[in-house]
């Protein structure tokens, strides 16, 4: 599930310890941004739907790409089929080991049968965890709905950002955390 050639030229992701550090750092950064955002919103509640939302939105869209999975170019192979331009497709068929994105070849980005099995199993666990998170946040919102609309807005928007962060990053994090050490590429 993990690309053999690291997308980051300054370190290799073949060792599980390195990958676990990457995951830990990723979640610390993401949760720090989320906490900082909540703090800013609490200071300026009127500007909540203004420019304050633009920054975390951009981060949420682009951060999971570092881990991979959702798109090509990260540490984890893309979960779906990589769609290539027609010219790239011909190029890839002629020379599948040629680097296509950074130093990663098209052959490395394709999932084999075992990878697909792993991907589906990891998504099952991630789905189960996300389901409980969504239920917990829904219960919090039900209580907030009784408390008042100002609480509902604050908790509702924060819930969506949290769910988006978890949903778009959790399967990749589980894969990076659990996959054993790989052999160093020659």
């Amino acid at each position, binding site marked *: 599930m993990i690309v053999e050639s690291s997308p980051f030229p300054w370190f290799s992701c073949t060792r599980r310890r390195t990958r676990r550090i990457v995951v830990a750092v990723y979640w610390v950064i993401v949760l720090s941004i989320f906490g900082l955002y909540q703090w800013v919103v609490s200071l300026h509640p009127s500007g909540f739907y203004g420019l304050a939302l633009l920054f975390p939105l951009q981060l949420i869209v682009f951060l999971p790409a570092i881990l991979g999975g*959702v798109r090509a170019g990260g540490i984890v192979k893309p979960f779906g089929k990589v769609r290539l331009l027609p010219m790239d497709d011909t190029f890839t068929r002629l020379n599948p080991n040629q680097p296509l994105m950074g130093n990663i070849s098209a052959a490395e980005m394709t999932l084999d049968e075992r990878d697909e099995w792993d991907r589906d199993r990891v998504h099952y666990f991630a789905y189960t965890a996300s389901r409980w998170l969504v239920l917990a946040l829904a219960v919090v919102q039900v209580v907030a709905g009784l408390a008042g609309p100002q609480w509902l807005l604050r908790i509702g928007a924060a819930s*969506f950002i949290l*769910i988006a962060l978890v949903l778009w990053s959790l399967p990749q994090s589980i894969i990076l955390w659990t996959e054993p050490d790989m052999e160093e590429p020659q």
Partner: protein
Amino acid sequence: MRAEIAIFGKRIDMSARARRRALVVLMYLAFAVLLAILWNSTHWRATGAWVIWAVIAACRLFIGGYYSSGLVKPFNGKAPQQLWLPPSLQALRLNFYRPVLAADKEAYSNDERELTQRDRAHYTAYQILAAFLLVPMFVASLRTSSGRDLLDRLAIPPAEFCYGLTMIGVVLFFTLPQAILLWTEPDMEPMIEAK
């Protein structure tokens, strides 16, 4: 997956895919009607919890997945809890009581093929829900770019928009993998013997 469901003791044959698809469509229609009624009555404020109870009832009675009853076997493969107390009179009257026998293991444990199907259904559901999250993102980004947007035109307060989407999210999170399995599984051998 089971080929029949038992509601109040009455066994209903669901071996045909068309029937299972009809059940999925009816279930989501019922949820849509429920959400619309609750929106009209209290804007989901005091009645949001009803959606959660409705989801639990749908899983327990019809689609299964998280309970030992319903069409889809429990995803975790655990045997249903057996109480060592005698069943209540109400449970017997409503035909809710179903004792679990050692020979019933097939009714709740998943084989290798079913586990693969379960994982694939969860993967598909996960992709759909991850894409569903783009809706609030899109609406929020519209709101950042202009003062007046879709929500203002529809006269929906942002708080209630978020709340409504969370309720839809709960419905989808608890029913989508089962719906995918029910929709895609081909016709099965009927369990009810023809008279």
